[in-house]
């Protein structure tokens, strides 16, 4: 069996989470909930899971970042880190929808909906057939417009409108790494490269296309356009 060491992290929600996975199990995981300090917490969290697992960055075979959707400033920290690490270490970097990792962590075999905080009185949501199968979303919507009639997993917000929310509140990098490792195990190196958006990649089977649906390039899922009005006040903050 190929040596696998997946470094995964997610900064798309108030949680900053990082984990190391050897293809079979989570070797180390770190999670801190602090919505304002993603940029300060992520790199030290990566260092700490490596230290705890007794591993070096040089041994990592793939890096995976939660691709959101998420409030943008924090989201970009994880994706920028994944791209720069992938480029520096010469390994593929992937993005996985943050809601997919939350869904995977439930282990559920029944349909459900995942929600995370989109701020501005809105939620990000996606609907799943089971823990591994996204059927709809991700989308951004007001709480009233989140689909009803299904169990809801994720952030405890607007429960008076959407109903009781259960399961993990924040994504776990352990689940993210586990999901990615599971998908990677089913792909040839060419298929895995294709999923990361690398030029040497090739997709040639249905399973690979399915794996690719979960694993993509480390690109942000914003779901909203930048706020900007024409003409805005001229403002340049730096010298």
């Amino acid at each position, binding site marked *: 069996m190929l040596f696998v060491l997946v470094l995964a992290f997610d900064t798309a929600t108030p949680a900053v989470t990082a984990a190391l996975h050897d293809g079979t199990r989570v070797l180390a995981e770190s999670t801190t909930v602090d919505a304002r300090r*993603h*940029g300060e917490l992520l790199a030290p969290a990566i260092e700490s899971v490596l230290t705890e697992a007794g591993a070096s960055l040089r041994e990592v075979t793939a890096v995976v970042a939660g691709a959101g959707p998420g409030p*943008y400033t924090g989201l970009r920290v994880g994706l*920028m880190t994944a*791209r*720069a690490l992938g480029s520096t270490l010469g390994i593929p970097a992937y993005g996985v929808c943050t809601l997919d990792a939350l869904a995977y962590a439930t282990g559920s075999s029944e349909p459900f909906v995942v929600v995370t905080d989109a701020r501005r009185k809105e939620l990000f949501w996606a609907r799943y057939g089971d823990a591994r199968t996204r059927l709809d979303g991700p989308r951004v919507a007001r709480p009233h417009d989140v689909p009803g009639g299904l169990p809801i997993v994720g952030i405890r917000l607007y429960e008076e409108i959407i109903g009781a929310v259960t399961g993990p509140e924040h994504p776990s990098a352990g689940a993210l790494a586990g999901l990615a490792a599971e998908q990677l195990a089913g792909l040839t190196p060419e298929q895995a490269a294709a999923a990361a958006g690398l030029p040497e990649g090739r997709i040639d089977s249905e399973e690979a296309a399915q794996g690719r649906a979960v694993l993509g390039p480390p690109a942000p899922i914003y779901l909203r356009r*930048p706020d900007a009005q024409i003409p805005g006040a*001229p403002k340049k903050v*730096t*010298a």
Partner: protein
Amino acid sequence: MADQPIVLGIETSCDETGIGIVRGHTLLADTIASSMEEHARFGGVVPEVASRAHLDAMIPTVESALAKAGLRVTDIDAIAVTAGPGLAGALLVGVAAAKAYALGLGVPLYGVNHLAAHVAVDQLEHGPLPKPCLAMLVSGGHSSLLLVPDVAKEVISLGSTVDDAAGEAFDKVARVLGLPFPGGPHIDRAARDGSGTAIAFPRGKADDGTLDFSFSGLKTAVARYVEKNGGSLSLPDVAASFQEAVVDVLTRKALAACAKHDVHDLLIGGGVAANSRLRALAQERCDAAGVRLRVPRPGLCTDNGAMVAALGANLLEAGVAPSQLTIPADSSLPITTIHV
């Protein structure tokens, strides 16, 4: 010289993704991706648009800088990055990239002050900085007079704008005159056919004895003049007279600072340093006062990665301890904090 450390500098404080590579104080590469075109229709930089562009431009810009320098990423000995001041979300992308590069390569990280980097960049063109020297930084975001005993160790703020930055005044006046954003180059061009003495615009704080600036009153005076003389005004004269008022105050204050602190070297940096009239008048007044003037070429005056790499090289040279991986991006980092 071959044994001097190779520093990669990352700048993302506003709309420019700048990557510079230096070996000691020799410039090896200076690559820039700008999102200015995406902002122009908004009449100013939109922070979220800038941040999105930084994320996408970072890796290609680093790769192109490495290719220009003929280096592999593993040849880099240290990473320097703008930690502030600037747009918070934009800074954060650069700082995240810098930490990942430092972590991935196992090299030291230096989070540096954007303004001090504007001073340090001149070494790449004109050699070591005199100690002390006086620096005037003028751009869309800042108008600062700094006393610089040692750019790696001590920078003292002598004065700054109390309202608009010099470059901001150029942008606002350009809009009043119907010229595109960013306004500086357009006003400079229009002013060439006009007279700087045609209209007597006010010189805010020019003779108040401080080393602070004010451009808000000037901007309002121009707007009023244009309102009053709408049909009959000469655009070149308004541009030239406005520009003259700005550069008159800037150079007067800069020379006054040199005299007050007995400094004989003046450095001008920031985007407005590309203004041709500022360069000419500064040279004239420095010559008269026996002050040596240093102005980097325009490409090094505007925001770039080379300036960040240059300051990183100074910090390495001075034996300053590297930054921790916990450093924040600080949108209002004070100039007295050269590195974090």
